[in-house]
């Protein structure tokens, strides 16, 4: 039982990261119906930004400042990607946008390799990692911070989407773009805002990923990006709450598979799950079955 709870905590740790990244997929999909396959690369760049802010300055920035700065620059990167690669294709067939997204993903990977080189950067955890004991369990402070900060940011996001005017506009655009334009909403700005928020959260996921697993390299976003995408589909793509639930579920399933079956089975089970979901409930856990209106 104790072992099970320890593994559950490990699962929550990975799950938090997947959830943060999954939110980016789901928000962008919700608003422009595009699966942004370059999102894993934004996560990777976020980690590199944090490394640069933390270790290349002559003075030590506080941890929170490093995080916020990296999230800010990742947000700008997200907006830039949308403006350069996706904006012109909004009216184009979906497949064109999808191909562009895959191209963008590869472009960013190789750009990172050009800038930073292929040798992994070693990310020292920016916080104290000595485990603390809660009720007989040794839990890493980093794990607590990962889970805590992720949940905090997710609550902030939910408040933003449901309680503020831009949040309301965002929901309006995702429901019906044309009607939103008629209501005087600046759709371009809202799309940029969506990319900014999604990218910032993705970067946060990347920073935690790099700190927990101690390395940053140009292809680090690929696999967690895919897993987060599955989490978004799992939870119901387009739904923020769904992405969070999906993220935590995938994280826990993955850890439990590693702990009780074998790490060999992780990808089989996770990707198999994607197929099962698409076959039996394509809208995901929290997704609604929307009927096309005539």
């Amino acid at each position, binding site marked *: 039982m104790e*072992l099970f709870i320890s593994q559950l905590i490990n699962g929550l740790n990975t799950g938090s990261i997947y959830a943060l990244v999954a939110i980016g997929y789901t928000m962008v999909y919700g608003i422009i119906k595009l699966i942004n396959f370059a999102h894993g690369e934004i996560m990777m760049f976020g980690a590199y930004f944090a490394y640069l802010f933390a270790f290349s300055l002559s003075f030590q920035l506080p941890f929170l400042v490093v995080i916020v700065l990296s999230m800010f620059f990742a947000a700008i990167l997200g907006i830039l990607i949308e403006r350069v690669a996706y904006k012109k294709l909004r009216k184009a067939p979906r497949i064109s946008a999808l191909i562009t997204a895959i191209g963008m993903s590869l472009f960013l990977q190789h750009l990172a390799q050009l800038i930073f080189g*292929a040798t*992994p950067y070693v990310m020292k955890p920016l916080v104290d990692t*000595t*485990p603390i004991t809660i009720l007989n369990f040794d839990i890493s402070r980093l794990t607590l911070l990962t889970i805590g900060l992720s949940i905090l940011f997710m609550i902030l996001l939910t408040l933003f989407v449901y309680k503020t005017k831009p949040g309301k506009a965002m929901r309006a655009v995702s429901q019906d773009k044309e009607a939103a334009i008629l209501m005087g909403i600046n759709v371009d700005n809202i799309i940029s805002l969506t990319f900014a928020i999604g990218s910032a959260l993705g970067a946060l996921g990347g920073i935690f990923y790099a700190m927990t697993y101690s390395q940053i390299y140009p292809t680090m976003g690929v696999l967690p990006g895919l897993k987060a995408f599955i989490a978004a589909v799992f939870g119901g793509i387009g739904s923020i709450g769904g992405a969070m639930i999906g993220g935590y579920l995938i994280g826990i399933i993955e*850890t439990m598979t*590693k*702990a009780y079956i074998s790490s060999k089975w992780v990808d089989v089970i996770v990707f198999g799950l994607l197929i099962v979901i698409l076959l039996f409930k394509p809208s995901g856990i929290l997704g609604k079955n929307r009927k096309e209106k005539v």
Partner: protein
Amino acid sequence: MKKLLLIVSVVLLSATLTACGQTDDTVRLGVIGPLTGQYSMYGLAVENGAKLAAKEINAAGGVLDKDIDIIAYDSKGDSTEGVNAYNRLRDQDEIHALIGGTFSSVTLAIKGLAVQDNIPILTPTATNDTVTLDAPNVFRACYSDSYQGSTAAIFANTELNVTNAAVMYNRDDAYSQGLAQAFMDEFDARGLSYDRFEFGAQDDDYSALLTNIKDGSYDAVFLPAYVAEVGAILTQADTLGLDLPFIGGDGWDGIEADYADVANGFYFANHYSKTDEASNVQDFVVNYTAEYGEAPNALAALAYDAVYAMVEAIENADSLEADDLVTALSNLNFLDGVTGPITFDENGDPIKSITIIQVVDGVHEVFAKVEAGDE
């Protein structure tokens, strides 16, 4: 006009092609290793070690009155790239012998071709057991995986009193698997217990495995893997509060550069120690550091020895013909290697000692030296 252009370009092209043809005023030794990418630290070490040896030998007059030319190509640690590099070395550079490939997987991919082409190979670092089997022209300067893995097991049992070990290895990597298997075989032979914990090359998250290990009652963890993985695993073990000694193989060499604090007090088997006081070792360390601005790792030392051993074989053979060279290599008795004396057994594997190193405050300390034949 078009025809003229075509003729001119054909002429120009053929001129450049003939320019590639080699004259025989140098001894050309090929090197294949990952010079870029995640594993570049290994390939660059081999290239640097080989080039340093060549420089010293050339300064002392070369071999058979010729200079040594080291030609290094990148394999990125990938077998296909390695075969491409090999083809280039054979066809374009017309090498006399090959120092490499650096990785076992790459060397295994090249081996079949090299046996056909009869090009003498002395790999400094490919430790997989099968590299030298059924290949009379393939030799190595390092000891094999099984020898290293079983030595690690003997060390764990006799020096650290380990009777129940967690064996954690990368199932996607022949090196990691080979060492783990040899370790477990030796534990079986001694009637000791162990459990295996596999991970994959794509894994970044090891917390589930480490939590299971923490929950079991193990005396130590045997972790034969490369620095990139070892560093990540030790960091996570540290954050999870896993408090067991880790034992590794030569893939750990260089761990102190980025992970000195999480690797502190742990042990690994290696080919030599930078802190060894033997004069040839210290000369090598000083010269290498002066040349490249960093201390040599074991791979650099092995490549350095491999070039010297190859040159001694060329001198003994007094010829650059492949057959003469292979005969000279199999009869070689190379004494002043930095990594110990090298003589080859009937497979082409060296008979040499293993150094067990403990990482203490970021420095390699020689903890034990297991001589060849001590089993």
